[in-house]
């Protein structure tokens, strides 16, 4: 079961995968491609990944969630490749007997995915420029200068 997907994500399927008669609370998260970023209009984007490491990190994150919330069952998918505005980039579903565990496990997984999984995002802006998103950059994640003419 790869966590990285080249086809559209399926939150309903993830929810079904974690549901059981004992686990009555299901918290989920869906991250969609927004039409703007740092004040710039985004038209589309591409996610790329260091796939083998990304798969290992995702598995490790789910194992940690299961260790911290043993009653919780969590499923995760991350899209890679070309995405349009409104497409789901990441989906997490966490089921547990009680909602507190479900929310905590869901939140833990999405935070760790953002923090640890080697995935990169290239945004294509409405003005024709492109940029690699850098969440660690001071003053915003979007490159200050257009990169349209940059060699690749």
């Amino acid at each position, binding site marked *: 079961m790869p966590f990285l997907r080249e086809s559209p994500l399926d939150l309903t399927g993830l929810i079904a995968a974690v549901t059981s008669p004992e686990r009555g609370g299901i918290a989920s998260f869906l991250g969609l491609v927004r039409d703007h970023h740092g004040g710039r209009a985004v038209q589309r984007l591409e996610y790329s*990944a260091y796939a083998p490491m990304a798969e290992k990190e995702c598995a490790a994150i789910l194992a940690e969630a299961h260790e911290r919330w043993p009653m919780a069952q969590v499923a995760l998918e*991350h899209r890679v490749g070309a995405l349009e505005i409104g497409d789901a980039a990441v989906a997490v579903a966490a089921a547990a007997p009680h909602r507190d565990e479900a929310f905590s496990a869901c939140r833990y997984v999405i935070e760790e995915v953002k923090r*640890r999984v080697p*995935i*990169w995002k290239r945004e294509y802006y409405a003005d024709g420029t492109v940029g690699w998103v850098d969440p660690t950059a001071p003053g915003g*994640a979007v490159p200050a200068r257009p990169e349209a003419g940059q060699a690749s």
Partner: protein
Amino acid sequence: MTPTSDVVTVQVLLFARFAELLGAERLVLELPRPATLQSVLDRVLALPGGAGLPARPLLARNQTQAPPDTPLEDGDEVAVLPPLAGG
């Protein structure tokens, strides 16, 4: 190559903006022993385009993040990771 070889050969993977800056997604480097992730980074920073990389990027050895002083063995897979942007 024998166990007593005085070099280690590692594969270096570059991604996203770093691959663009260096014009390559994959390098094979031979490094004098003892080699560490920092040894790889020093070599990468000295390549054409390497000056565009940050001085302390995230590094991984065999698909696990690791600190710069991590020793390398022959055949290791090293990755130099731009700031992560998943999720």
